[in-house]
């Protein structure tokens, strides 16, 4: 398949602009993740690709052909809904076979009353039955094949929804937060299954999520969206290590990148009138900047050893690693704690520093990411 091109696509609902002028290209066989917070327009964009929501302006092209007015069917897409949207009155077999049965229908088979009878007949078709069984076996649904959706657990329903998408061999798979209704363990398992499925079928996947862990682990490429605008398009590594702006820096990563507004004068950076510290290298330019550093690039040291004096405020143990939240301190006493977002440090092991204990933070100059304080855009070193 086809390359999918979104060319200055926009969507407005009444007076609300949900997506403003978005352009992107989805390559054949890639796993593209649309990542963004709730209400950023990512699901709307997916529905526009599917043909379920009209496009207000711009153009969608499948393989170079304008597809704005194509029906979902003409676009040859499969869609997995967040709610799964299974047919409650049909068995698992009926649900999975439905797309194939519809493909096998002649126009007059769609007549009311005829269609119910034809559907049951088509389901007995050896080719369709064999394919249904094969897909069900692949997703370990064969013991449940005669149950209805009401009798299935969340994970099982999710697998039925996936099976229904897989059976037809479409050119693009569109998945709208398919894992958000599952518990953590099942989500991890399904994440791995969807990834391996992508490798196996080798088709294009477009996957919507607000969960950056899903995005980082599954994607070959990520589009980060906010307020209907593309913030960054890149591989998970690019998004993580070289965020295009402060929004991406904050949204991706857990805990997110530490961002401090500083006034730079050469290698000396001032956070507040009473706290300034030395940075190994000169800042990209003088004036007000945002200093960004990932939690795992910060090092927790005894007081006085690092350039940033701080106090331990929060300690979270994640088993194999701990996350320490610190508040920066000016002048070395508690009275001078700086009112600022906590600065997080992530480090391996489970050695917990005492709450309230003084400490200092150090970092390597090369790990710092700089942003413009006004536009929020990343400054190239």
């Amino acid at each position, binding site marked *: 398949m086809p390359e999918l091109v979104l060319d200055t696509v926009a969507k407005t609902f009444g007076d609300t602009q949900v997506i403003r002028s978005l352009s992107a290209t989805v390559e054949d066989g890639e796993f593209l993740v649309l990542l963004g917070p709730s209400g950023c327009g990512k699901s709307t964009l997916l529905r526009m690709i599917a043909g379920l929501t009209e496009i207000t302006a711009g153009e969608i092209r499948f393989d170079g052909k304008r597809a704005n007015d194509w029906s979902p*069917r003409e676009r040859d897409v499969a869609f997995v809904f967040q*709610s*799964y949207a299974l047919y409650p009155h049909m068995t698992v077999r009926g649900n999975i076979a439905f797309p194939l049965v519809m493909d096998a229908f002649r126009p007059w088979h769609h*007549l009311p009353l005829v*269609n119910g009878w034809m559907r049951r007949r088509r389901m007995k078709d050896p080719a369709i039955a064999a394919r249904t069984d094969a897909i069900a076996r692949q997703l370990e649904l064969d013991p449940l094949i005669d149950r209805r959706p009401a009798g299935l657990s969340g994970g099982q329903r999710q697998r039925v929804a996936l099976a229904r998408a897989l059976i037809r061999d479409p050119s693009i798979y569109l998945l709208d937060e398919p894992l958000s209704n599952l518990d953590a363990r099942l989500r991890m398992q399904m994440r791995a299954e969807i990834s391996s499925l992508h490798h196996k079928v080798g088709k294009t996947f477009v996957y919507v999520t607000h969960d950056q862990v899903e995005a980082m682990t599954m994607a070959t490429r990520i589009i980060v969206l906010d307020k209907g605008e593309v913030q960054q398009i890149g591989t998970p590594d690019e998004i993580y290590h070289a965020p295009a702006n402060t929004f991406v820096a904050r949204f991706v990563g857990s805990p997110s990148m530490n961002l401090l507004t500083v006034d730079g004068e050469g290698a000396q950076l001032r956070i507040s009138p009473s706290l300034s510290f030395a940075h190994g290298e000169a800042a990209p330019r003088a004036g007000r900047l945002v200093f960004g550093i990932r939690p795992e690039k910060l090092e927790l040291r005894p007081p006085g050893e690092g350039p940033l004096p701080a106090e331990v405020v929060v300690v979270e143990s994640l088993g194999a690693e701990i996350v320490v939240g610190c508040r920066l301190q000016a002048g070395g006493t508690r009275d001078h704690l700086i009112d600022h977002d906590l600065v997080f440090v992530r480090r391996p092991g489970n050695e917990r520093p005492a709450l309230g204990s003084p400490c200092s933070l150090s970092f390597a100059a090369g790990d710092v990411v700089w942003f413009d304080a006004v536009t929020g855009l990343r400054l190239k070193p």
Partner: protein
Amino acid sequence: MSALSLILGFLRAILVLVLVAVAGFPIYWMATTAFSDPGQLYASGQVPWPQPQYFGALVAELEGLPVGRWMLNTLFVATGTTVVSLLLGSLAGYALSRFRFHGRGVVGFLLFMTQVVPEALILVPLYAMFVALGLLNNLLGLVLANAAFSLPVATFIVKGAIDAIPYEIEESALIDNCPRIGVLTMIVLPLIAPSLAAAAVIAFFAGWNEYLFASTFLMNRTLWPASVGLASFIGQYETPLSAVMGTALLFSLPAITFFLVIQRRIVSGLTSGAVKG
């Protein structure tokens, strides 16, 4: 604890018995009156249970009357009303529920208005229309007139039921290459079967019991439905009570059967499990 639940169970049983007695007594009294000595009915001392030995007398009394024909006419009118109401009500209810179009509110309002206007009020204009359209003395005309009143009810019931179905299920079917009409007939209608059954009951009984239109639009005795036929028993000087009750009993049997058949479908909960609840 068990003594308490025993008492509660007993009270519940009594309550059910009382309700059954209240609901069932008219039918019982119809049977009692139908199978009794006509002479006794006009004097005091009617035997309070059916007396099968008067069955012959009842048959003799009804002989020569087109009771069977009346029943068939009623069945035709009730079934026709149900079919027309459900068919058009499903389409209209689906459109009102799923499509946004200009005049949607007006359509809803006009449908509601049909329920506000009493039938007797539009009887004369309707009569004039039926004369112009040649629908007088025609059972199809009666079906149309009845459907005009039960269709809005069916439409509202269907619309309400479809509103409760997540639209994603339909979108899913559209993506699976199912055309709109297939979405409606293969996905939506099976899911709202309980509501359709309820609408069917309302439309069927509206057609079954209807008297005013039938007595106005049908002059031909063989076209009468049973309701008009029954009323024709009432004479100026005499009303044959056992014949009226016998016919009424006959008349209510198909209706009871219809209800018993369809009431199994009036169960909700079919949509559970479609989407994460």
